[in-house]
């Protein structure tokens, strides 16, 4: 009797399935999250796996597909119709202390076809806000616009923001005076201010730090990768620098004023010299501001001078920059980014390049000459970069040399910290717990941690359904447990994120936004999908009724 009853119920349930399917659209295809291989980016990979597991709870079929770095970047960047979702990261850089660079480039519609808006997020309302914050010079009003932009992105969820990582830097406290390790907002202690102010405790006066990657050529017109830029910013001065507080401050320029919304006037510091002993002149400053705009010979830096209409001298050491339109971030995104380059050295190079296909990025002087607090000594591919303190600089460093060792083996770098071959572990991509344990085995080593302004996220390709549906994006974002990712994938060396503006940039960050992801739980995410018409059939998520799956699965 019992068996008969169960059979009846089972058959009834089975017969109901086609009917349920008719009340739903096609099943959502298997979604693929692209990631770099676990060996290359273990934390991101694990985070992607955790996101995939969360999405599976919504009835989605999800795979994490690891691709070698080149192929990964190639597909995400140049094959924008092909992929569903991808892990991605923005690293912290001093010039990103002003949110403009990311605010504008990541989400503005004009960048969707070929620029950094590779997810294809299109929202005129956001475009208006991004432009408004750029043109608003009143900092309070600008902050309000930026908060509004963050709330808008929170509403639309073009990315599944995961975490803001913490920077973990180990250093030998018997070699370096703790109090001279300067924390820069959103960057941590591995920054320009630490290198120029670091005080040795004893005879060891060389900073020896590691890099896991091989830097590209050092040039004032090449935006080197993260590690290369650490060296470049020491060799070449800039008119302004981002201070430890995250705000731009005069550097090679003694004073900087903004008489009108479209003009900037500055006076160059007197007595500056290039590393070859010749004086830094106002002509050099003008050249440095104009050269990136010469034709297509400096494509990396060209966007940073695109808003400059005119540069003219207004005194023996003073100049005026006239902008085409107001630009609130100009002091950060341009004056704190452009390197001062010697006209005597680089003008003939640019002249020569006029008749050649090459650009300035690919040119490296035999002995790079800047005017910065460190002089270039040598670079050996896959071996080391050596800089020495510039005794003629007004901010003469207290250390003798800055030596970057190129060590791809991160375990060997940990060992080198223990043995004293390194005295700053500046680039650590391994397990945070191993690093945190280092002081226990060697009390001379201390760890400095600081919240980074960078972000790690899953980017949703809005060109491909169902990611084009805001309701779907909100639901899958809600299902992501950011705290668990920070704790487990990042070993606690990260905090939950829900914006491109890190809490490390406290002034600009929307307060508490990480806790205000719409929905915020898997249960809420399921309800959001249901409310949007998505249907679970036999545990698998289907589109709303009448919607066909028209997108080919990622191959």
């Amino acid at each position, binding site marked *: 009797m019992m068996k008969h009853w169960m059979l009846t119920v089972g058959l009834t349930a089975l017969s109901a399935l086609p009917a349920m399917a008719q009340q739903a659209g096609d099943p959502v295809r298997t979604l693929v999250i692209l990631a770099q291989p676990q060996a290359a980016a273990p934390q991101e990979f694990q985070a992607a796996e955790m996101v995939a597991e969360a999405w599976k709870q919504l009835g989605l079929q999800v795979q994490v597909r690891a691709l070698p*770095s*080149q*192929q990964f*970047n*190639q*597909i995400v*960047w140049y094959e924008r119709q092909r992929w569903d979702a991808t892990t991605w990261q*923005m690293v912290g850089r001093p010039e990103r202390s002003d949110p403009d*660079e*990311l605010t*504008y*480039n*990541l989400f503005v519609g004009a*960048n969707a*076809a*070929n*620029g*950094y808006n590779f997810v294809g997020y299109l929202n005129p309302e956001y475009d208006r806000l991004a432009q408004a914050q750029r043109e608003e010079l009143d900092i309070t009003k600008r902050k309000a616009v930026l908060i509004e932009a963050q709330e808008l992105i929170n509403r639309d969820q073009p990315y599944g923001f995961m975490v803001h990582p913490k920077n973990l830097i180990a250093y030998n406290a018997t070699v370096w005076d703790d109090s001279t390790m300067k924390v820069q907002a959103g960057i941590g202690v591995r920054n320009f201010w630490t290198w120029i102010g670091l005080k040795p405790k004893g005879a060891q006066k*060389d900073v*020896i730090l590691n890099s896991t990657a*091989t830097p*590209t*050529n*050092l*040039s004032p017109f*090449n*935006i080197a*990768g993260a590690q290369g830029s650490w060296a470049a910013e020491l060799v070449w001065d800039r008119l302004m620098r981002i201070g430890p507080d995250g705000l731009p401050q005069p550097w090679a320029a003694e004073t900087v004023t903004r008489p009108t919304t479209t003009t900037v006037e500055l006076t160059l510091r007197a007595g500056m010299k290039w590393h070859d002993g010749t004086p830094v002149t106002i002509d050099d400053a003008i050249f440095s501001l104009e050269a990136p705009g010469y034709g*297509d010979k400096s*494509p*990396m830096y*060209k*966007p940073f001078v695109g808003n400059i209409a005119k540069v003219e001298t207004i005194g023996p050491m003073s100049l005026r920059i006239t902008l085409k339109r107001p630009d609130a971030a100009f002091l950060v995104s341009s004056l704190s980014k452009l390197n001062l380059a010697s006209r005597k050295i680089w003008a003939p190079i640019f002249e020569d390049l006029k008749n050649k*296909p*090459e*650009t300035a*990025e*690919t*040119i*490296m002087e035999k002995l790079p000459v800047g005017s910065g607090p460190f002089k270039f000594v*040598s670079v*050996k*591919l*896959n*071996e*080391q970069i*050596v800089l020495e303190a510039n005794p003629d600089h007004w901010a003469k460093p207290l250390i003798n040399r800055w*030596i970057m*060792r*190129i*060590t*791809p*083996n991160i*375990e*060997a*770098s940990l*060992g*080198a910290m223990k*043995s004293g*071959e390194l005295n700053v572990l500046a680039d650590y991509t391994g397990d945070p717990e191993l690093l945190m344990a280092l002081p226990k085995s060697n009390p001379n080593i201390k760890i400095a941690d600081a919240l980074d302004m960078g972000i790690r996220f899953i980017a949703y390709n809005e060109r491909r359904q169902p990611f084009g549906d805001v309701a779907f994006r909100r639901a899958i974002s809600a299902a992501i447990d950011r705290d668990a990712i920070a704790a487990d994938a990042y070993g606690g060396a990260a905090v939950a994120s829900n914006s491109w503006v890190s809490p490390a940039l406290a002034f600009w960050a929307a307060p508490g936004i990480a806790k205000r992801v719409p929905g915020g739980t898997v249960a809420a995410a399921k309800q959001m999908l249901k409310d949007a018409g998505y249907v679970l059939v036999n545990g698998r998520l289907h589109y709303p009724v009448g919607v066909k799956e028209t997108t080919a699965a990622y191959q």
Partner: protein
Amino acid sequence: MSSLTFILFRLAPGDPTINFLSPSFNEETRAALMKSFGLDKPLWEQYFIYMGNLLQGNLGQSFLQGKPVAVLLADALPNTVLLTLVSLTAAYAFGIVAGAFLAFHRGGLVEAVSIPAALATRAAPEFWLGMLLLAGLAFQTGWFPTGGALSPGREMNSFAERFMSGDFWWHLALPALTLMLYLQGLPLLLMRATMLEVLNDEFIVMAKMKGLSRWSVVMRHAARNALLPVVTAFALGLGASIGGNVVVETVFAWPGIGRVLVTAVQSADYPLAQGAFILIAASLVTMNTLADLAYAALDPRVSVGAKR
């Protein structure tokens, strides 16, 4: 080989502009960079330019390092050659002696322990061996440095100065020991096997009957004849190791050709990768030729064109 490397890299996914991605990167930036690298031209035109330059001995300019490929390779090659020569010589010297010894003392306890040990080191992944040695001899004891070819900040004006310095050899010790342990299995087993064959030959029986000493029979008669395949393997191993030290060079941050190749391939630096491949291929071909010549010199029976 040159044509193959040219095509291979262009078929691989990714292009060098990927290295320049930044929030301000756009199509205009990409077009300018592609033009700068000469990648805006049709493939056939790139190929003829590349081959033309190659015929003139010009390997081109690295896309990312701002230096000629020849300079970058010339910096790395001596490091790799020395690492290879030292480790291979040590491996073969040990392998030959140990192989001959084991053949002569066949069936004993020593053989029962040695053969599995040789096979184990031969089968163990290089990175694992390297990390074990690093943990034991560098991290724990501090006897050897953890990586690199010279101490941090050490500047050498010439290769001669570098190779004459104790610092260089101190840094070479662990990577060379790792490679030596990894490589010694082949010559040991080869020598042992060949020796076992040779020891049964009639001329060895004759030598014994003549009342020659044990040393003389083994070393002067048997070992010399058993050496032929080992010499060939040495030359081939030398050629293969020039480009095959990628793992050891990475574990020990040794600035050799293997790491140049990895760096170049990872960043789609076509000229540098092509140059490294051509160098490796040329090493292999050269060493194969030398192996043939050495074989002919050591064994008149295999001389090309020998009178019969």
